[in-house]
Structure formats: C-alpha cells, structure tokens
C-alpha cells in the first residue's frame, strides 16, 4: 500500500472521529413540553415572548438578571431566566431561540438569539407597519385604517 493511501485512511478516520465526537454533543430544537421532559438537558427552545407577562430587568438592582415568560407554538408557557443583560430587541422580537436547560419550572437560559421582523420581509402588512417615514398618518393610510 502506498504512503498516500495510508495517509488518506488516517485522515478519513480522523474526520469520522471528529464528527462522531461532534454528534455526541449535538442538541435538539425543542418545545416547552419536550424541554420539560428533558429536564436538565441542554436544548434549544424555540418560542416567543409572552407579552402578557412582565419582563423583569432592573440593571440597578442586578444587571445580570432577566426574567420573562416564553410561549411556544403549542401554547405552552415557561418562565425564562437569563443571567445576563437584556437583549435590546427582546420586546420587538417575533421569535426567540433560547439555549439552555429546564431546571424544574424555570428555563435557565445561557444564550438568546432573537429573530426580529426583517426589513426584507415580503409581507406588505409587516413592511408597512414598520414604515416610519412620515409619521402615523402615513402608517394609517398604508394600512387602510
């Protein structure tokens, strides 16, 4: 067998080993219910901000404590605690991806990715509601209200 073949085999083995260890660390996207079932396991929770519950963040008391409620697409709710500063667009977001683990009743979150209404959206309704050019008259006119 040629040297190159040996090297290629070694390299392929290394790639497979690398990918296997990576697979071991893989996590999943979950709903509130399935995250509850995996209590203590690291998951990605997809939900949105529950606007009916208060968002608690008081930087004077503690700039590293944010608490809010998340509501997933199946209507399940959970309290979320994020020990970091409040992401600036939280209230504006339409979807929140939270990485963390369920600890009893509370979702302890280590990272938050927000999806905000995109400027490039193709839905005219959203586009027009975001229209800020000439004040509320325009927005009203655009929306036809």
């Amino acid at each position: 067998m040629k040297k190159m073949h040996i090297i290629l085999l070694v390299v392929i083995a290394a790639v497979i080993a690398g990918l296997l260890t990576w697979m071991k660390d893989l996590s999943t996207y979950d709903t509130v219910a399935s995250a509850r079932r995996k209590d203590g396991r690291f998951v990605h929770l997809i939900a949105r901000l529950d606007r009916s519950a208060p968002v608690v963040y008081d930087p004077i008391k503690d700039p590293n404590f944010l608490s809010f409620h998340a509501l997933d697409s199946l209507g399940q709710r959970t309290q979320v605690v994020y020990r970091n500063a409040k992401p600036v667009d939280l209230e504006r977001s339409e979807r929140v991806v939270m990485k963390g683990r369920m600890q009893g009743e509370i979702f302890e979150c280590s990272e938050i990715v927000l999806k905000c209404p995109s400027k490039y959206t193709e839905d005219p309704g959203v586009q027009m509601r975001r229209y800020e050019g000439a004040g509320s008259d325009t927005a009203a006119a655009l929306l036809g209200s």
Partner: protein
Amino acid sequence: MQYEGEHLWIGHLGHFCTILSLVASLVAVYAYARSTALGDQPSVAAWRRLGRVAFLIDAVCVLAVFVILYAIIYNHWFEYRYAHQHSKRSLDVQYLLSCFWEGQEGSFMLWSFWNAVLGLIVIRTARQWEAPVMAVMSVAQVFLASFLIGIYFFDLRVGSSPFVLMREEFPQAPIFRDPQYLYKYLVDGNGLNILLQNYWMVIHPPVLFLGFSSTIVPYAYAIAGLWRREHRSWTDQALPWSLFSAGILGLGIMMGAAWAYESLTFGGYWAWDPVENASMVPWLLLVAGIHTMLIFRSTGHSLPATHLFIAGAHILVLYSTFLTRTGVLGDTSVHAFTGEGSTLYGHLLLMIAVFTAWPLAWYLRRRREVPVVREEEQMSSREFWMFIGSLLNFVSAVYIIILTSLPFFNRLFGSRWAIGEDVSFVYNRVMLLVAFVIAVLTATTQFLRYRQTPRGHVRPRLWVAVLAALAGGLLVSLSGILDYNVYGAGFQAGIHITLWASLYTVFGNAQYLFAVLKGKMKAAGASLAHAGFGLMLVGILISSAGKELVSRNRTGIAVPGLKDARGKDENPLENVTLIHRAPMPMGRYEATYTGDSTDPKGDRVYFNIQFREIDSLTGVTVDSFVVTPNAFLVKGEEGTQLSSNPGSKHYPGKDVFVYITSWLNPDNIQDTSSFRMQPALEGDTAFYSGGYVTLDRLIAANRHNNKDLPVVDSAWLAQLTVHASDGRTFSAEPAFLVKDGLPAVKTDTVWQQNLLLTLGRSANGQIEMGLRETAAATRYITLKAYIFPYINLLWLGTVLMVVGFLVSAWHRVRGHVRAVKGVSGR
C-alpha cells in the same frame, strides 16, 4: 391613474440594461464556446470577436445598472423599492454605497460588476486561453444577470429586479390611490440598518465580493485546461490568479472580522458564525489548491487534487451564498438575511448544480488523459509535506462546512438537530490541532527540497528558528497570558504548543527570507505570507486565550447554584451597571460614567466612560483614559430600543473594549409620579425625602424689558440649590418659557438625588416650582468590558499575509510575461 413626481424612465432604462446584459452574456457564452470547440478552424477568430463584443456589451450594461441604481439611491427617489427600503434622506453620503450591499439585488450586482471587470482583464491578458475561460465566466454572468431580471415565467418569478416600484410591490396599499403619494407619504425611506453604518461596511463588501468573484478565474482555467487538453499550461495563469484571489478573499474576510470587532457586540472578531464560516471555507480550499498547484508545477504530482481544490473553492463560494442568502440558516446566524430569498432557493441550487456538474463532467471525460505520476513522493521531499498541509486544509474545510450546513440538513431531512452547548469549542478544539500541524509544516517545509532533501540539509538551517521559537514561546507561556483553564489541561497544553509552533512559523519564514532569499523581495511573497499567517495565529491565540473580562460583576446579587454544565467554572456575571458619576471598581480599573453626548443628527449617543488604572500598592493613578462606546436609538413598534456599538481604547499591546448592554433613555421614562407644584417666591423652601430645595433667585424676562431675548416672548428662570441631608449641595436651573403664545418648560434634573425640578405657571398666572422624585431618574448604563491583549498582532499578520499573496501573484505574472515574450521573441 397619473402619479405625480415619479422618475419612471430611469427604472425602465435600468431594467432594459439588466435584460440586455442577460442576452449579451448568453451570446458571449455561445460565441466563446463555439470558438473553443472549433479548435483550429479559421472561423475561430470571428466567433471570438463576437464573444468579446457581447461580453463588452454585458460589461457596459452591468456598469450602467450600477450607476442607475446609485443615481436612484443618491437622488432619494423613493418610488423605487430599493431606495425606500435601504436608504433615507438623512443618511450620510459615504454610507449611500452601503445601501447597495444591504439588499440582495445590490450584492448580486456587485458580484456581477467584479465579474465583468475580471472578465475584461482576462480578455486583455489570457491570449489563447481567452475563449474557454471567458465561456465559463460568461455563464456566471448569465446566472448573475438572471438574479436581477425579476421576470415571471408563468407563475415562477425569476430573479428580483432592483428597479421595482413601491406601488408595484405593494399594489393593495391605500396610499397608491392618491396620485400625490410621493409628496404626501413616501417622502422618506426606511433607512439603512445601523450596523451597516460603519466605514468598514463601505469597503468590506466590495473587497469580499472581489475575493468571491475572483475564485471563478482559476476555476475557469481549470475547466479550460481539461477542455483544451492542455493539462499543464493552464496553471501558468491560474496560479497568479489563485494567489490574487486568496489574498483578496483573505483580506475581505478579515475586514469583516474587523467590522464585527468594531461594531458588533458579540465581543470579538470571530464567533464561528455560519456567515463567517461560509466565507472562510472557500479560502481554505483555495490555499490548498495553490499549494498542490505548486507541487504539480515542480513535480507533476497532485494534479487531480488541484482540480478538486480549485473547482471546490468556487463551488463553495456559490454554496456559501446559498446558505447565507436564502434563509436556510434560519435561527443559527446573527446575520439577519432571513426570509429574503425564498425565490432564490431553487435558482441558486441550479447555479450550484451547473457549476459542479461542468468541471466534473470534463474531468470524467478526460480522466484517462490527466497525467498522473506513478512514482511515490519521498518522505523527505517538499511536495510530500506540502500535500499533507493542503490535505489538512481540505479536511478542516470539510469539517467546518458540514457543521455549518446542519440547518440545511435539518431542512432536507426534517430533523431538528443543533450544535450543542458550546459552539465555539466544537470548532476550536479541532482547529487548534490543525493550526498546530499547519504552523509546524509552514516553517519546516520551505527548507525542504522538491523530490528529495539531502540528509543534513535542514537541521543546520533551522536551528536558529527553533531556538528563537522555543525562547519566545517560553517567555509568553511563563508570562501567564495564555492561562485559560476553561476546558481543562489538554486544551490549555494545546494552546501553548500551538503558540510555540506559530512563533516557529514566524521565525522560520523570517529566516528563510533573510538567509536563503537574501531579502530578495520579489521572490519573498510566500515567506511573507507564511510569516504573516504565523503572526495571525499568534495574535489569535494570545488575544483569545488572554481575553480578560474586566466587567466581572462582584456587586450584584450572588447567584446560588449557577454552575457551568460541566461543573468547572462558575459562569462569570459579565454586566456591570454604572450610575452617573459614581466610580465603580472594575477589575484593575475604576470606571466612571462621566456623561454622554448626542451627535447632531440626534440618533446616536456617545457615552464617556472614564477608566482609571490605580496601582493597588501605592494608590497612584497609573493610567487614565476615556472610552466612548455609542448606541443608537431605534424607533420600533414597542418604543425606543437600543442598538449598541462598542468603543475601544487601543494600545500597542492591548485593546480595552467596552460596549453598552443596557441603557435607560431619560426621554423614555414612563414615570407615574407627578410634579408637586408650589408657588415660587425668592427665598422659598421646598422639602423632599432626601433634603430640601431653596429658591435663590427667580429671574423674569420678556421682550419689553430685555431686547436680547430673541426667540421667546417671555421667560422665567429659577436658580435653585438642592441641599441633600448628607450635606452635599447641588444647583439646578429649571425654566419656563412662552413662545408664540405657547408655554414650554425646561426641566432640570439632579441625578444624584433622583430629583426632577421644573417651573410652571398656575391657572391664575402665578409662577410655580415643582419637584418630582423618581427612581427612574437615576441615570445609568450597563456595560461589558474586555481586554484583548496583543490583538494588533492579528491585524499586522493579516496585512503581511495579504501583501505576501499579492507580491507572489505579481512575481508570477512578471515571470509568465517574460517567459511568453522570450518564446515569441525567439
């Protein structure tokens, strides 16, 4: 209906140009392909001429489209969707170009523009290679033009035109029932994403896109070589093009890193974000391809690998466009491209399929002719170890792109997997090992010879570099700057030995430059690039491992049970709140929020944070400086929001890096408490919970008794002294004005006492003063602060590397030109 004030002709012209460019590039494809296929027949020249004319028309059209769209943006013609969505009147002129790259159409246009420019250069320089290479590049132009036409074929919209009008995009909107909608409603645009309002964002996208688009030239040469059965000479010109492309692409990527560092708040220059990965992977392949091409030119080995890497680099450019532009990445990327390109999905997949199938088909057709050396490489040869390095580049590229494509796989297979808890570590643990091997190879291999290296050839030449690296490495290791125990001893050891290896790269290549090349700069490209790469690694390792959290919060409430999942280190609480003018100890510094200022346009606030470094033994201030991070106020549906840009203080050896994570805009306070009003007479006293306020003087002025009062009709100003119960006093000057018969109030605030003071007039005309106490009046910001040590080594290394690539490319071009002239002169 006849609409007023629209500029329709320019849009028609632009749309005409996009269609003409599509047609012209189709003609160019056909003509150049015919010219290539005909081989030696006399009509070859005629076909080639037709191809040239067609491509020239295409290039002119692309340029025209570019200029037209710029004119639309520059003139704020908001009847066009592109101007309305990406620009606004108050935007600074230097950012108008950034509006181009914010949208999908503009970035394809930029790509097409560079492709046209590169094509014109190829036409001038490629000689006998012109026809096949330009055929490939014209196909790319066909696709890029088709992204811009925005024409319906039955129900399928192909491409998206940048010249669409708002009223065509949203025909149902009621404002378009008014012929004067432009004057009444669409008077201003939505504006540019504030993160893009940064000077890096003016220059980074053009450079990056030049890098992306230039990968097609070596790709086209590779196809041309197979097509014309010239399996060796295609590399003569492909090599300098590859070097150019790798240099520019590397520069573009690192400019993006610099932008991320300066204006994003993920606290660094690289986060293994899918968008970053997608641009890095083609670069890795390109660099692998350059090395195997050099092997091939010197020894005849590695031609199939060269084809794979060079073709793969361009295909991965297309694939990365697909990943980042079609919204496939969805929730994994901070870059907000989502939802932009659902029509783009199939279109880009088709382009990838064509550009993958084409070189593959040619290779399979010619596979028996492609020269392969049967003889094995010697272990002691240069080519053997260069190949190992290239292979490692390829392997790491595969690793990165598989991980990055996970959301795409999810979409294909309906799975719901995500990269686990610590995304960066998943990459770092592999790439650290790769970096170590590459660094050792980069230094050593230059001293090896092709075919076989004689015994005792390397050792006498390399020991200086080895010793220097060992000494330097020990110095750095012992300094403790690399201490990073988050992932245990193995990773820590990896960081140390990789740093030594990187120093070895720097010294080894510096030595090669001076000892072997004797400082001949023309031939020094490779050594320069390698030394620069080594410096980059050193900078990355030190600035990442030695990254220091300054704003470690020790004052906030303790968080019991907040342990890292692996039970190792307690998660540091990274945010610190600074109350206005109250010094706060922060790591080795004492930080004070001394004030803020708003820029004249009124949408950006600069915060002055005074840092004082105090020697803990003597109490002497060692260093004092001001960092000014800034923040934008974004008006959203749910009130004003903050968007933050970091500020940093640069030292040669470190950066102090600060950004605002939370800020309460005083204008935004919705406080339920109201002012307590009382009649205001000089000498009056009013009490509040923290002390009392005296009215020292009440000044009344009006137009009759004061001619210097130009703006208002009459005014009252109260000079107040606030006596806090702890003995401190503060002064305040609220005022009450009447202008054009309308009252106005200027409220003053004593932040330290959470006290708002105002002046007013009661129903019977009596002047009153008012006090309001509020918790919300406290002015504060919340921030994070880091120190990045020796990050300048990264930037310096980048510059060296790019210069090295370009010197190399230039050197090869000159060598080639001389060789061609020599042949023809004989």
